[in-house]
């Protein structure tokens, strides 16, 4: 499959207060954006357990997006700061597993920023299209079964 024909799969965890509403605004305002993000609504970007991100990559995502309220705007005071800390540490750890840090994005999108959501989705999709599929292997299970 050539990279031009490749449609990246993106799992997007969006906080319900800001980013999900921002994505909704992009929709109601009829802004067109890449359909590659599968959106999962969460109560807060701080709710996103690193296990969710890892599972998404393992199950075939080419990229994972976490999006929450801008710093200082979190509905729960500091959930987005927790997301920020986890994102930086998890990015570093994912690289040790061979998952490039460009495949895992954290973006701040407020409820008023439909256009920013459009831009983030389009950019991320294009970037992943250039990078190509992640093709996660499932630990070489077959090798052991065949031996």
């Amino acid at each position, binding site marked *: 499959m050539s990279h031009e024909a490749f449609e990246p799969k993106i799992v997007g965890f969006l906080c319900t207060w800001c980013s999900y509403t921002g994505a909704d605004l992009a929709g109601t305002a009829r802004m067109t954006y890449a359909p590659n993000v599968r959106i999962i609504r969460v109560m807060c970007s*701080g709710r996103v*357990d*690193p*296990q969710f*991100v*890892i*599972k998404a*990559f*393992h199950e075939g995502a080419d990229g994972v997006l976490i999006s929450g309220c801008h*710093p200082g705007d979190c509905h729960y005071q*500091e959930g987005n*700061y*927790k997301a*920020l*800390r*986890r994102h*930086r*540490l*998890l990015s*570093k*750890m994912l690289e*040790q*597993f*061979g*998952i490039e840090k460009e495949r895992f994005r954290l973006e701040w999108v407020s409820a008023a920023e439909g256009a920013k959501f459009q831009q983030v989705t389009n950019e991320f999709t294009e970037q992943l299209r250039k990078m190509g599929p*992640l*093709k*996660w*292997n*499932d*630990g*070489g*299970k077959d*090798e*052991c079964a065949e*031996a």
Partner: protein
Amino acid sequence: MNVQKPKVAFYWCASCGGCEEAVVDLAEDILKVVEAVDIVFWPVALDFKKKDVEAMEDSSIAVSFINGAVRLSEQREMVELLRKKSRLVFAFGACSHLGGIPGLANFWNKETIFNRAYHTTPSTDNPDGIVPQEEHTLDDGKILTLPKFFDTVYALDQVIDVDYYLPGCCPPKDLIVNAIMAILEGKLPPKGAVLSPNKSLCDDCKRNETKPEKLAITEVKRPWEVMLDPEKCFLAQGIICMGPATRTGCGERCIEANMPCRGCFGPTDQVYDQGAKFLSAFASILDTNSEKEIEKIVDTIIDPAGYFYRFSLPYSILRRRRMEAVK
């Protein structure tokens, strides 16, 4: 031989021998065990051979205790044989339960490991560049073989069906004795149980009292870099301690020796991925909201994957480094 006695087998795969020590360390309690059971296979201590096991009837062994991870085709063959001959299989110790220390090899593959071991370590003396082959024909036509070395290390239940898990590196004496007594008395919990309490180490840790209400880490230190306070919570000292994401039941041997928990008991039943769960807890207690500061602290954590998955890499969601990315 008393036919009433249940037959028991011990086997080791990719392991250090510590789990075998743990059995011997039962000391006088081992006499009770020996009195109650008939050991039919134990390569490290008794002279039985594979053919002796092959000659047994299927399901004739009451229980096999298997330690070590599966990294070679020979190990796979042996554990499959023991599975066929046994009514119960116990994964004994961290390596068979989670993959253990040998499982850290999953950051590499066969080629890179062989290259390191047989060509590039400072102590390698191999002028002809000889690397082990799976098959070699001698001048007289005789064929010698070695087992296949897998690219990936496996936990036991990724290869065969496992009934129970005895966690730990190595499993402590009381858990082993309790497990054996439970087998003999027919009081085992439902299949698939890890035979240790299902709560985190912090729940039992004496240092929990010294943990401040809000843990806040501004600098991550390694144990050798500081004089460790013998009573204070390690996380409060800026030392990575796996306690929050690790199952208890170990008797806190490391904590007693003034060393942080390294996670050998694996996660509790509620957690899929010990390393990711620990990362989640640990990152959230870094005491800064500034992007720059966060990145500075993250830089001081030298090897997060190796630390957070020290014993559980093969048992994690991702299991290994992406094959295409191994160099």
